[in-house]
């Protein structure tokens, strides 16, 4: 196996992990270019959009290598982004060699999430309860928002698992969360329906696409920025539609 092939695999694996788990476009491009330069390749260019990575570099005396990969999934796991960042930093500074970098990247890719999934459900409940209070609810609204936030989080994970359609999962999660909130308030647990529903929906907010859209547009990755913004908009719209359906049916 030629050295450039191997380095290409390492770079693209690093880029794929970062892009999948929510890194900004400029960070992926910069990481790939730095790693390839650190391995003494010339003429390094990378072009990253929200859904794919192109990387090309020149091996002295042999010729150019160019490869692209398609990235389908976009998930929320910033811990993996920071771990890959660390591996690339150590590789660039020469602390680890190519084989070790590859092994560590494969390990990061296969590793489970930083927090088990029930902790994430519980955190969604806490976030829901906290925000229902912050947005003007009373102390008695915290508990129903907590329950409905957990329901919304569980349903977004489960629908994603079985149907594998992100926007529909978010729509159904907003619908079920909104329905739970309306039901709990109807039975006298909690007073301000509006604040309970707002709190319930907060854990579904597409924070990473929103943030990355601003960051990408700012640093000149216009294609990636606009597409991330579109993703965030569609997610927000599907959440709004889901809760609008719940309100229309049950109120």
């Amino acid at each position, binding site marked *: 196996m030629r050295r450039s092939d191997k380095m290409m695999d390492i770079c693209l694996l690093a880029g794929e992990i970062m892009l999948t788990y929510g890194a900004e476009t400029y960070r992926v491009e910069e990481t790939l270019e730095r790693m390839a330069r650190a391995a003494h390749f010339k003429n390094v260019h990378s072009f990253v959009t929200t859904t794919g990575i192109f990387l090309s570099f020149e091996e002295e005396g042999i010729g150019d290598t160019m490869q692209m990969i398609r990235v389908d999934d976009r998930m929320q796991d910033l811990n993996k982004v920071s771990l890959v*960042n660390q591996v690339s930093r150590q590789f660039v500074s020469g602390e680890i060699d190519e084989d070790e970098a590859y092994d560590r990247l494969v390990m990061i890719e296969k590793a489970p999430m930083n927090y088990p999934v029930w902790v994430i459900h519980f955190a969604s409940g806490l976030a829901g309860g*906290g925000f229902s209070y912050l947005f003007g609810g009373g102390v008695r609204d915290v508990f129903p928002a907590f329950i409905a936030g957990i329901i919304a989080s569980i349903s977004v994970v489960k629908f994603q698992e079985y149907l594998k359609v992100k926007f529909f999962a978010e729509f159904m999660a907003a619908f079920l969360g909104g329905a739970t909130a309306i039901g709990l308030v109807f039975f006298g647990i909690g007073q301000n329906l509006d604040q309970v529903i707002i709190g319930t929906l907060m854990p579904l907010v597409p924070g990473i696409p929103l943030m990355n859209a601003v960051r990408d547009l700012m640093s000149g990755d216009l294609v990636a920025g606009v597409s991330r913004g579109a993703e965030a908009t569609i997610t927000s719209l599907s959440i709004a539609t889901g809760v609008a359906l719940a309100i229309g049916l049950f109120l």
Partner: protein
Amino acid sequence: MLLELLFCFIATVSFGVIFNVPNKAAVLGGGIGVITWVIYRVLPEYDVTIIFATAVAAFVSASIAHFLARRYRLPGTIFSIPGIIPLLPGSKAYFTMLAFVDGNYLLGLEHGIETMLQAGAIAAGLIFALSIFSFGKGIGQRYETSR
């Protein structure tokens, strides 16, 4: 107010967990969230509009996030996403949706414009902080004056 800060801290740390940030960064992000919320709540009491207060809060939290990112050598988004979350116009977006569902389009547009303005203020604060932390490194130029 103290209870509000406690809830803000819990909610922001939970958002860190939802986005799977490293453990230490989740707690620090909670601290940033509390600072953001204090600025966002205190400034309107001194006759500052809510939009401007949002921009200032976003700027401060993004600056702290960049600083911590340098310090701990982690990607900046890990700190700035949980820090920004309390500013998101969730309740205004909800009332926009509610007004449109009721067929009350004028009120919906009113709330919708407020939502957009607040989102724009967050973006403005973020971009300003980012620009300050990129002086000299350069992001985008207009004229090639050095040739």
